[in-house]
């Protein structure tokens, strides 16, 4: 995120965007590849087919290289709330701190400890117990995602609290944990993780097909990836759509901005593409391709539903919260929504095409598809990044929807110099980590040379 930033708030936002987007490049692959590796190890234990063991080790190594950066960058996220956003931290600590602490105690402990057991336990635990350690670690990662999304969803749609002396106090932990927004966001995120895992697995398999290496072995993995990817990418299109309905009721402004819908419409068309129409002074696009009534359906679940426009919502918010601009950056939100949705559809098409080729027994030979599937590795990353930009920038100017403005939430004693130093520090460090991680992932994922290299197939850290 290269944003020309000058004020404290801009710098703090740029830093949060940079570090959280970066963190989330690694998290979903952990969420998705973990269960896939666990399935492969389970299949090995069930069938005693050594090929599943080799696949477990191969993808297990990729899983762990990726996991390390997820942990390292997660620490930054935890510190950053207090460092850059101390006013926010005091304001929400009662509510927001609780799921974070539960995440640490109930989920992150589980995942870190049991992953250590899995990595080093191959010869010290019985095969069944060893397999169980991986499934428990996977459970830890899934629980972890839940609590983090409970915390984030409270910023999108605050529930179960009351305001006391200018701070949000928790009144019902059940309301917090069963926040409908959080549950939908959770399903959406977990599916995204599984899509990451299966699409990247498919891409790696196709890389091996393309080079003609270990075709027999990777056909098995490709089948598993396809069995997962086809239904899940399809399901995600539906779930994403239903998630949109929850956003409509909680954050009308976000939906209106994501469609650049300046005035209330009924019924509303969904524009696939438009030129212009992103600012108050230029409300009507000079060109657009629109599908009639689709927006009504996506936002409300009915083809004749009404969607409120930005102007009407702005007037309403001004009446409620006083003067100010409550409209987020429409251009960014509009395109973030489309990039995410189009990438989602493309992933479904790639998966469906792969499944069709597999049925026709052409998957290992369709070189054009191999190249497509390798390129498709970028899609989940693009979709997830766009999704978070939509979620977080669509909430602006609020840091907690309707309760606290982002501009009032930063640490008062942290200067732009300090923020500049830390931003430069994180960008530099993250670029270096990213390059090393990419080189390592590529090296350990690449089609092995003539014969399988033992060191490359090792499941994990062996020291």
């Amino acid at each position: 995120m290269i944003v020309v930033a000058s004020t404290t708030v801009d710098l703090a936002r740029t830093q949060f965007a940079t570090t959280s987007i970066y963190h989330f490049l690694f998290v979903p692959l952990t969420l998705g590849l973990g269960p896939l590796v666990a399935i492969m190890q389970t299949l090995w234990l069930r069938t005693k087919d050594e090929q599943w063991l080799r696949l477990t080790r191969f993808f297990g190594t990729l899983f762990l290289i990726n996991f390390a950066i997820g942990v390292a960058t997660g620490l930054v996220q935890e510190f950053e709330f207090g460092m850059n956003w101390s006013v926010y931290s005091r304001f929400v600590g009662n509510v927001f701190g609780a799921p974070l602490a539960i995440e640490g105690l109930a989920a992150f402990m589980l995942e870190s400890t049991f992953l250590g057991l899995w990595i080093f336990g191959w010869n010290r635990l019985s095969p069944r117990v060893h397999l169980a350690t991986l499934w428990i670690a996977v459970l830890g990662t899934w629980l972890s995602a839940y609590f983090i999304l409970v915390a984030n969803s409270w910023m999108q749609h605050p529930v179960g609290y009351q305001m006391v002396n200018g701070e949000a106090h928790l009144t019902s932990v059940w309301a917090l944990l069963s926040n409908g927004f959080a549950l939908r966001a959770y399903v959406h995120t977990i599916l995204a993780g599984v899509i990451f895992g299966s699409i990247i697995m498919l891409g790696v398999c196709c890389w091996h097909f393309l080079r003609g290496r270990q075709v027999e072995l990777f056909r098995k993995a490709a089948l598993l990836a396809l069995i997962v990817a086809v239904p899940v990418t399809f399901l995600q299109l539906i779930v994403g759509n239903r998630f949109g309905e929850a956003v409509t009721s909680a954050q009308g402004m976000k939906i209106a901005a994501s469609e650049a819908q300046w005035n209330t419409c009924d019924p509303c068309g969904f524009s696939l593409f438009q030129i212009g129409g992103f600012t108050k002074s230029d409300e009507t696009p000079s060109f657009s391709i629109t599908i009639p009534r689709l927006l009504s359906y996506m936002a409300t679940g009915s083809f004749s539903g009404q969607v409120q426009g930005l102007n009407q919502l702005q007037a309403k918010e001004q009446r409620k919260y006083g003067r100010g601009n409550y409209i987020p950056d429409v251009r960014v939100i509009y395109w973030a929504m489309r990039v995410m949705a189009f990438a989602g559809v493309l992933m479904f098409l790639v998966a469906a095409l792969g499944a069709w080729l597999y049925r026709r027994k052409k998957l290992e030979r369709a070189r054009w598809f191999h190249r497509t599937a390798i390129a498709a590795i970028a899609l989940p990353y693009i979709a997830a990044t766009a999704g978070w930009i939509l979620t977080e920038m669509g909430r602006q100017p609020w840091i907690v929807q309707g309760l606290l403005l982002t501009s009032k939430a930063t640490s008062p004693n942290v200067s732009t110099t300090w923020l500049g130093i830390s931003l430069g520090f994180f960008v530099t460090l993250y670029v270096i980590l990213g390059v090393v991680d990419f080189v390592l992932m590529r090296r350990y994922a690449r089609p092995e040379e003539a014969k399988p290299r033992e060191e490359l197939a090792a499941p994990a850290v062996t020291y």
Partner: protein
Amino acid sequence: MNLVNFWFVLIAFLWGGYFVLEGFDFGVGMLLPFLPRDEGERSAMFASIGPVWDGNEVWLVVAGAATFAAFPAWYGAMFSGFYLALLLLLFFLIIRVVSFEWRDKSTNPAWRRAWMWANAGGSAGIALVWGIGLSNLLQGVPLDSSGDYTGGFWNLFTGYPILGGIAFMLVFAFHGAIYLTLRTVGDLCERSWHAARLLAIPAVAVGAGYLIWTVAVAVDNNDKSVFPPVLPAAIAIAAFVLAATFVYLRRSRIAFTFSAVGTLSVVATLFTSLYPRVMVSSPDFANSLTIQNASSAHYTLAVMSVVAAICVPLVLLYQGWTYHVFRARVGGEELTGAAETPAA
């Protein structure tokens, strides 16, 4: 005991758990440039903490998040106030995390040496920053009336906190050397004994000096009497002396037990000295953050107490099981990784 006190004690316990467990990991890391004679021994040292360091580090994550949830004002003041120090800490934490996972991904000697130094430097740096940071909570830092830190980066570096940083490094190095006598074999084990003997006197001396100074600072800066802080301080000093004694007697288990008790008691001394404040303000003592004015409301603390009552014993149970699983010593023959991976 009301809930605010309970959470103060629980957070102290989380810090204690973090330093007892990660303390020896830091010690092993700091000894990496000195103890091993070859790559095999370096790998053995990495392997001695490989399965457990990640779980140990989560104690810090939990301590941080629990502070956020139970004492939001403390979390906000400390993390925004110690800004550049924590940035430095994050640097050390990150290079250390990746050093564990990345070092063995290549056989290139320069690559391995670089990550060995990242682990050693990260371990030393983390110990130093926490020693300095936690000591500053007690010595007092300039806070304004809304609890915001008004000092700069260099304010944190005065005599007492610097001694705290050095004491943390020495104590953890000592603790780590004893851990290695439990987990290694042969020559490496002998050299671990040697390192533990060499470190024993400086660790005990500097540790004791720091603990005594801590009690003095508690009296001078935090309006405390000598008792009760002197009690955990005395226990800590006695435990370190006993640990040193048993190192000379070559009794590794009991020496390790005492260095762990000593480390835990150092944290207990700090938190007893702080109580009932969590962050002392100096020169405006009235601006200090206390467990009352920094804490969350009763409901949040009650919910979190239920979670902690269920989760903490479970964590202790399964982490304890992990140590049981990996109780065997790591020796030269395992270094190829053959013993850790199936022979398929």
